[in-house]
């Protein structure tokens, strides 16, 4: 009986009804803060100096001409490329392995996702112990394996960014691996047997049979890891606080430092928008490139 009353509402209006809460939350919690922060980026807002005057694009000009920005941009790109390449390759490898049958696969599958559930700040604490120069576990391990003769520092100006990237890869890879695994499970087994009968070798089978099924997950994982790597902050924040010197001062950390070291919200906002624009641009380019052939 009540159903009749509801049917007078069209499907489209009903759909709007369902998403009204989402729209309210989005407008209040995303759109409004964003508009506000863009507005701030055009002002010399500083909570410590108590200034709040319109300065046009002055903040952006400062950001684009500062050598700190260039340094951080370079570091962010190195970090991102290292993380994306290693987590995608490792992720595909893990997925292929977990898709094979072997004793204990269920246990391995369950354990492999754990690093993803461990927060970045905890990873930072963990990996600080591993990299520690005076007693660290990596030093001990390499020494016992005869690879190094005496304890060394891994978090040096030249290598710190890679040390952080490895820790981040450890944390981030499992999620992508499981996305890949999901797409592998959709591959019909008879395609493999057919390829085997046709005499295709392992790599050829992967390329011809498996790869087409992984295209979609590849796109998702590639884009997600680009975004995540460019946003990553906590690890650097807890483990190296941008150091030694400025060797791990990636863009998000620079935004934090510029904003909160001197409470200059205006300058920080302009830097934050620059970083956001970079992420949006890279994502769009990747998305277009990876979906072009459909």
């Amino acid at each position: 009986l009540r159903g009749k009353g509801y049917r007078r509402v069209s499907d489209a209006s009903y759909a709007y009804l369902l998403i009204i809460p989402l729209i309210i939350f989005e407008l209040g919690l995303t759109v409004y803060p964003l508009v506000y922060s863009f507005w701030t980026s055009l002002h010399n807002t500083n909570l410590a100096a108590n200034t709040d005057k319109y300065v046009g694009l002055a903040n952006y000009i400062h950001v684009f001409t500062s050598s700190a920005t260039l340094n951080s941009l370079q570091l962010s790109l190195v970090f991102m490329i290292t993380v994306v390449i290693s987590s995608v390759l490792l992720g595909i490898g893990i997925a292929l392995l977990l898709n094979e049958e072997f004793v204990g696969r269920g246990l391995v599958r369950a354990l492999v996702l754990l690093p993803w559930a461990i927060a970045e700040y905890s990873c930072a604490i963990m990996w600080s112990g591993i990299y520690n120069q005076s007693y660290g576990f990596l030093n001990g391990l390499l020494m016992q394996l005869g690879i190094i003769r005496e304890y060394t520092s891994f978090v040096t100006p030249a290598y710190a960014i890679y040390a952080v990237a490895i820790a981040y890869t450890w944390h981030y890879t499992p999620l992508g691996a499981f996305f890949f695994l999901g797409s592998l499970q959709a591959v019909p087994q008879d395609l493999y047997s057919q390829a085997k009968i046709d005499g295709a070798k392992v790599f050829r089978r992967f390329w011809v049979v498996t790869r087409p099924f992984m295209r979609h997950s590849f796109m998702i994982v590639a884009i997600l890891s680009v975004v995540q790597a460019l946003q990553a902050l906590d690890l650097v924040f807890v483990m190296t606080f941008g150091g030694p010197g400025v060797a791990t001062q990636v863009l998000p950390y620079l935004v934090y430092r510029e904003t909160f070291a001197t409470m200059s919200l205006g300058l920080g906002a302009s830097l934050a928008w620059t970083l956001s624009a970079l992420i949006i641009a890279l994502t769009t380019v990747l998305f277009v490139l990876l979906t072009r052939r459909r």
Partner: protein
Amino acid sequence: VSKKKISIYVCAIALLFWTLFPIYTLVLTSIEQQVELVSAPPHWIPESPTASNYLQLLGITPAVSGMMMGTVETLRVGLLNSIIIALAVTGIATLVSAFAGFAFGRYRFRGKMQMLFAILFSRLLPSVAMIIPFFYLFNQLGLLATQQALIITYLSFSIPLATWVLLGFFATLPSEMIKSARIDGCSRTSSILRIAMPMSRAGIVAVAILVFIGCWNEFFFALMLNGGTPAQTIPPAVASLFGVQGGINQLGQPAIAAATAISLAPVLVLGLIFQRYVTRLRIVDPVTIALELPEGA
């Protein structure tokens, strides 16, 4: 045993080592005495293991020092705040996203693609970009250092994520059951509540876990908005023991490691559960939505 089998097991062992070694070092640190910890080469199996850090931090045995006593209190308050905030966000976000995800996954309406792109874009913004307006606004509203501040902030990124994941789930539900329920005189709302939601239980559970882990692990907003206050959650609490930003830790590595392990325990359990659902998640992209997803409910 074929050559292939051997290489599979070698890879599996290497993978387990890569995955578990860092976790093992944390556990090892937490049950060693400071003296044994700094021995070189490291004792991979402790000679005199102790659970005393765990027992003190969990309040089972009395704290041995004033420093430790303060830490126990910090952790207790942090855990409590974390539980309240994560549960509140998980509940609200899952509810809002379940309905929105259903609408996006099964209905055609004007502005759908634009809205989906807007939701995706909101996920592209780094937390350092969002902290500036949130910090300023909460400062104005007097909400800094409150549980509400973090609940509001976490909703802003949990709802888009949850909606996006659930939409993929609802879109791939078989239409027949929902349609036949509608023909039998079921209203749209009750077909959602009685048919679609129960059918998507796995997806809803997975999303709830995803959101909960995200909130539990969130560090940056938690530090900037509530760090060092009574409304502090567990991430800044543990990080402050470690000595954020070059601060000195006086507690000793074993106690810090034990505190970290305690803070990780809930999400590790949830991660193990989530593992059963994760390969079933269908992460969709805007092109797929436009071209492939079925319409109508």
